[in-house]
Structures are given as structure tokens and as C-alpha cells.
């Protein structure tokens, strides 16, 4: 079946603009994760959704970052008033439950000019 997909694959934006990044998890996967991969910080956890439970937002770096997951499937990560330090690859992963292997999407490369 299809894996995790993310769109867009690349996004270039100007400082101060808002951006939305989309993640389509594997069908039937109840858990969804967002990670960020940047040169200075490596790979870091951002946020986690499990079913209809309240998300774990403990990894979000600032209140400019938010995410939602509609209908327990597609997720959108929103970054408001983007800054240059937001430039990174944003990775989405899903798993069939909280304990199982996480499958990663190809990522969205965000460049803030």
C-alpha cells in the first residue's frame, strides 16, 4: 500500500509569512508524529497525535507552531510568521499504534528567506 506522503516536497517562503505543511499518513494508522531535521539541531520531535486524544505538543519550539489532525487522518503543521531559523526538513511519521514502528514520509524542505 501507499506510504506516508507529504506536500509540498519543497517550500520557499519569505520571512514573516505563514506556511502550511501537509501529511497523509498510512491508511489505518492511528498515531501520527511530526519531526524537524535541521543542520544545527539534528532530528527533533515536534508533536504527536494518537486517535482522538489530545495531542502531545511538548516538542513545539514556539507558539508560532501549531498542528491539527482532521478526522484522525490528514495532518497539517502550520508555522506562523516564519523566521529563518525555521528553515529545515519537516518529517511526518505514522504508526499503527503508539508502540509500533514509525513509518516516515519523504519530508518537506522549508526554506525561509
Amino acid at each position: 500500500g501507499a506510504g506516508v506522503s507529504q506536500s509540498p516536497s519543497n517550500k520557499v517562503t519569505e520571512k514573516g509569512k505563514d506556511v502550511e505543511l501537509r501529511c497523509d499518513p498510512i491508511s489505518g494508522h492511528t498515531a501520527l508524529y511530526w519531526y524537524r531535521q535541521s543542520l544545527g539541531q539534528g532530528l527533533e520531535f515536534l508533536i504527536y497525535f494518537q486517535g482522538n486524544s489530545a495531542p502531545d505538543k511538548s516538542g513545539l519550539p514556539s507558539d508560532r507552531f501549531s498542528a491539527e489532525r482532521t478526522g484522525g487522518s490528514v495532518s497539517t503543521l502550520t508555522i506562523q510568521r516564519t523566521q529563518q531559523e525555521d528553515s529545515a526538513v519537516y518529517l511526518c511519521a505514522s504508526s499503527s499504534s503508539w508502540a509500533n514502528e514509525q513509518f516516515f514520509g519523504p519530508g518537506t524542505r522549508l526554506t525561509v528567506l
Partner: protein
Amino acid sequence: AQSVTQLDSHVSVSEGTPVLLRCNYSSSYSPSLFWYVQHPNKGLQLLLKYTSAATLVKGINGFEAEFKKSETSFHLTKPSAHMSDAAEYFCVVSDRKGNTGFQKLVFGTGTRLLVSP
């Protein structure tokens, strides 16, 4: 909090020679450990995982890793490198919140494996 340390940022080998990528972990309880591989412009792919069963774990593409509690290590090995193994490898530990909490993955800084002909 759980953490992993990858001791080498780059490892260079010749095709056909053994591969050793080193990883040490820090965990306050019995950890779940993983190795992921990332090829250029590709997503992360799970190579293998350790979850307190057999200490020698076999993964895909001929890779294996051995969990050594006494050394807090989880080194990744392969007997014979192929050109296609050239990629970035991440050692990962799960930071599980209680028995029902989620499994946040904590990544090492990565080791870039270079394979020469």
C-alpha cells in the same frame, strides 16, 4: 531522559569490507533501540529494532546490531559493504511515557557512511 550518542560523524569503508557504526545510549530503564537509514532525498527507513527480546538483532540488507547492556552500546554492523549502503545512519532510542504513553523517538546526530569502490 533517554539519549543516544553516535561516536563518528563520518565512516569511510571500501566496498566488500566490514561496516561498524557505533552508538551508545543512556536510559533510566530498559530501552527500545532502533537504527534508521536515510538515503539522499529519501525518507527515513527502519533497519532494525531492539525491544528486550534477543540481544542480537538482524535487520534488512544484511545489517545487524547487538544490544550490550554492560557497555550501554548498540553498534550497527555489516560483514561486507555495498556501494548502495552509502547513506546517513541514525541510532534512535524511544522515550516512552509510562506504560501507555507514546513512543517519542530521540535521534542521534547521525553517521554518514561513505563506500568507495
